[in-house]
């Protein structure tokens, strides 16, 4: 994927820019959520929008997720294109009904007569010790529920293009960003906090995975922070002559099964990495896809690395123990190659 720019942005700025450009282009687009106005969004995804577009299109809401997410659906049904922020994806439990029984299903119930063009945006992920109700990823949960597209970007470039696609999509899109990738000054979980982002609007198709690094020895499939860790691990492993292919799914729904299968056909080994919980989630789905469609290409059992089915603990050594990171990926890849 060739990026034609030298301008570098954080993911937060890339997202805010995408939203601003779409709001300029399309008067139906507006933003609502808790602290998205003056505050600019707790993770700065809506920074600067209030100043540009005023309180009529950048609406701070009460702490009433069922209320305003349900309202977003109503507004979308009547021709608007809302972007509604759920501050932390962890909080979706208070409004899940509106999301999966209504937003995700009204199009189907109406055989396409009702469109639900809205974006739900939410922050995910841990690594900064915010404990079990503020550090979850949960994208596997949403990807299990039909009717929602699920976007999980790993770079500022992808973040902008995927956000523009999400806003222009006539279907509901859940857009989950990882807090640690946003390039926030106060949360420095990664080393490279910016990336090249073209100024003009552009789209990235929902449902296309991206090979973030080519390799021949093993495929590592992941999303969001997992991609970042996988790339770090790949650089480490390269020193030992191991060529890791890093496949960034970018969207969990639609899932680019072909890209997964093609990569495994090339490398014959698969590690799936996820910061979401291990069981009944993304790692299982990716592994199953390969076990169904590329089994005969596998030279070793599939491996999975994800949060081992525990709530995210607060204490740093505990949290670090359960989160995937580059050293754990290095170790897993080596095991894969020795099996």
């Amino acid at each position, binding site marked *: 994927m060739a990026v034609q720019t030298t301008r570098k942005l954080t993911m937060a700025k890339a997202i805010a820019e995408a939203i601003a450009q779409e709001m300029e282009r399309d008067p139906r687009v507006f933003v609502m959520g808790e602290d998205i106005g003056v505050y600019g969004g707790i993770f700065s995804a809506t920074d600067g929008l209030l100043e540009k577009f005023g309180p*009529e299109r950048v609406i701070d809401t009460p702490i*009433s997720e069922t209320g305003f997410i349900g309202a977003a*659906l109503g507004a979308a049904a*009547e*021709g608007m294109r809302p972007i509604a922020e759920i501050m932390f994806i962890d909080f979706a439990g208070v409004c899940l009904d509106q999301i999966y029984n209504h937003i995700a299903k009204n*199009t189907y119930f*109406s055989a396409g*007569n009702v469109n639900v063009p809205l974006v739900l945006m939410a922050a995910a992920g841990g690594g900064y010790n915010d404990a079990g109700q503020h550090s979850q990823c949960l994208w596997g949960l949403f990807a299990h529920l039909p009717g929602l597209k699920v976007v999980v970007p790993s770079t500022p470039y992808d973040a902008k293009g995927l956000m523009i696609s999400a806003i222009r999509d006539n*279907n509901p899109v859940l857009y989950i960003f990882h807090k640690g990738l946003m390039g926030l000054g106060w949360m420095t979980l990664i080393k490279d906090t910016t990336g090249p982002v073209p100024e003009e609007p552009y789209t990235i198709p929902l449902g296309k995975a991206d090979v973030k690094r080519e390799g021949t020895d093993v495929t590592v499939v992941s999303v969001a922070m997992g991609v970042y860790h996988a790339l770090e691990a790949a650089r480490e492993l390269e020193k030992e002559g191991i060529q890791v292919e890093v496949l960034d799914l970018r969207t969990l729904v639609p899932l680019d099964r072909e890209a997964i299968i093609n990569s495994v056909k090339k490398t014959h080994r698969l590690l799936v990495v996820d910061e979401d919980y291990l069981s009944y989630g993304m790692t299982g789905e990716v592994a199953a896809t390969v076990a169904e469609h590329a089994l005969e290409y596998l030279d070793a059992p599939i491996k999975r690395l994800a949060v081992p089915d525990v709530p995210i603990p607060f204490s740093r050594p505990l949290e670090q123990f359960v989160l995937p990171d580059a050293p754990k990926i290095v170790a897993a890849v080596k095991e894969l190659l020795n099996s």
Partner: protein
Amino acid sequence: MNVPKSTLVQMYRDMVTIRVYEETMAQVYLEGKQPVFNIAAGPVPGEMHLAAGQEPVAVGVCAHLRKDDAVVGTHRPHHFAIAKGVDLKKMTAEIFGKVTGLGRGKGGHMHLFDPEVHFSCSGIVGACIPQAAGMALAFKMRKEPRVAVAFFGEGAANQGAFHEGLNLAALWKLPVVFVVEDNGYAISVPKHKSTAIATNADRAAAYGIPGVYVGENDALAVYEAAGEAIARARRGEGPTLIEVKTYRYFGHFQGDPEVYRPKDEVARLREDDPIQKLKNHMLQSGLFTEAEIAGLEAEAKQRVEEAFAFARASAYPDPSEALMHVFVD
């Protein structure tokens, strides 16, 4: 109160249409389900929630609505749908699961979507409340003089969605009217066992909006209360909460053993029937002859018959359509 003749016509015709529709559905629903009731059998399988007896709230409110005003209903949606002007043939076909239905058979009785007249509903109790607020938000943002109405049962008024939706609507002064249909029961649970106060209309105080209680199951009384509320919303003065006392003649769903209410309750309720009441009023007003009213009744019956005939005659969707419409392009 001075109700225009055309409005009386509309309300009466819709009430009769609703009643005939529900009574017809009650019969049709039983096809294939006798002698042993099997919910999965017959031309109309699945749950079936009928609204006979609850006509006044639907017609009294919808008489004030325009085609482009929005209505969001509940699991018991037929009366609202009919009063809002949903295409009766397509609606019935949907309830039969036919390809000519509003949703090509995908939604069924609890999921009727007719964007032509801005009608939708949901099987989840209370979910309609914030949704209607959001529709009103869209109208307000675009400065359109349109109104949204959420209808729901007294049981729904104990859901969190009620509180959140009303607070939002009041806070943002949205053009929306919230209408509680108090039919006394949420399935088997009587209101006094679910609701800490006697009248949900009093909950309007928690949002600083008008709360109106209509204590009789009467179309004209509802019409009057709703008129002011909808006008207020259209003037941009914000939401109103209306609660209407009403009665459900059938069980919660068809097949409900109704062990929770006295055996003679419905018979007693039927003695004070709201359709008869409106008819008496129309005759007494001197605006109508018996024949005219009979004409309206005949018209209603015919529409219902045609709708059911259409539904029966329609084809089922091809099974593979099940995979379509999860997403649009």
